């Protein structure tokens, strides 16, 4: 669900900005403030476009979710891992 949502939301919000033409060059409000909720419908297209970019990162990136689908749903083998039996202090980072 989240994979499909992120992709759809990004495509739709991107198309909306482009379809608006001259209006798509505008933004509603750049004032910095702590967000209390994700106000998707109460803001303009520019905000929706930029905010939707977070959808494929927050709460598990789409790449990690695809790995979960591939490995747990489809039963494909996992990537070879070199970090499982190593102490954290010995890992490349």
């Amino acid at each position, binding site marked *: 669900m989240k994979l499909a949502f992120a992709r759809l939301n990004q495509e739709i919000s991107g198309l909306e900005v*482009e379809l608006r*033409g001259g209006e*798509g*060059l505008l933004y509603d409000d750049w004032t910095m403030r702590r967000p209390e909720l994700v106000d998707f419908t109460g803001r303009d297209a520019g905000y929706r476009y930029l905010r939707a970019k977070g959808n494929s990162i927050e709460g598990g990136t789409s790449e990690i979710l*695809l790995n979960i689908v591939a490995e747990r749903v489809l039963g494909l083998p996992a*990537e070879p891992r070199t970090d499982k039996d190593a102490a954290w202090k010995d*890992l490349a980072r």
Partner: protein
Amino acid sequence: MSTTSVPSAPGAEPDLLYSEEEEALRAAVRDLLTDHCDAAGVIARTESDTPHDLTLWQTLADGMGLAGLLVPEDRGGQGATHREAAVVLEELGRAVAPVPYLTSAVVATEALLACEGADGAELLGRMASGRAIGVLAAGLHHAPGDFGTVGLEHGALHGTVTGIADAAVADVFLVPAQDGGLYAVDAGEAVVTPQVSLDLTRPVATVTFRGAPGRRLGAADTAVHRALRAGAGLLAAEQLGLAEWSLTQTLRYLKDRKQFNRPVGGFQALKHRLAQMWLEVVSLRAAARNAADALAHDEDADVAVAVAQAYAAPVAVHAAEEALQLHGGIGMTWEHPVHLYLKRAKADSIAYGTAGAHRTALAALVDLRAP
């Protein structure tokens, strides 16, 4: 600096490579931008009331003589071509530099080059030497062949135009009027109201004329068409710069960033995406280079510009979007510059006509009719 190049003979194959002089020009502009246009500084400017960097502009325009690249030497410029201007724009795109190069040194300059007469010549000379910033009073979203006009009564202009990029720093507006003429209006005679812009590095504004005195420069339709065509064609060079930055930075990050005890760039899922980005960027280079070369020789320029714009916008936007995603959480922060590139790329996808508008234009140019 001398940037004069000898155009190849008409009818020759398009030259998509960069000459030694063009590479030297690139190096000079890149050095300047590395020293005077860092991302943190650009972000800080976007938070201020003066997003444009006019000190940098003066150095580029006057110090390096780049504002007059498209202007022949006998009209006060450097006598170079669109090929050199495109190299400058690639570098300005790589740095999302907040300077009015595309709007003044390309679009407004091209409009004036289409005009005869003393008023236009005087203004062209001032713009070419960086003493004035000229801005065409047509919304940034207009594709070549599409623009609005303002009213004209007893030689004075009346009306409002919106979405005018870089209007905040304009000294002179070039205004298409309802009588078919293009008029020069001093910025002091117009009311400029900033609009809140998606791309804070190329902000747009509303410009209102209330009985503003204008000096007639020439016919608007030919001048504006020439201006917007050059703007669209050379915008592709800027988009190439944006895409190239996105690729380079993402590549660097994915080689450096380690997860699961290895660089994340080693995972095929990401490696293939970067390879795909590279393929798109090199194809965009060919399309953008072809448009600059065609404009320089005025040969099949309409087709070359439409092809470049049909291709450039999706590539630049995709590159910036991939850069954001592949940087993960850090890419969503205000402090990381990727948002500047995403916003510029998205605004550029509308500027001088969307990819769709250019595809429509291209279909007509190559005689493809809708069924």
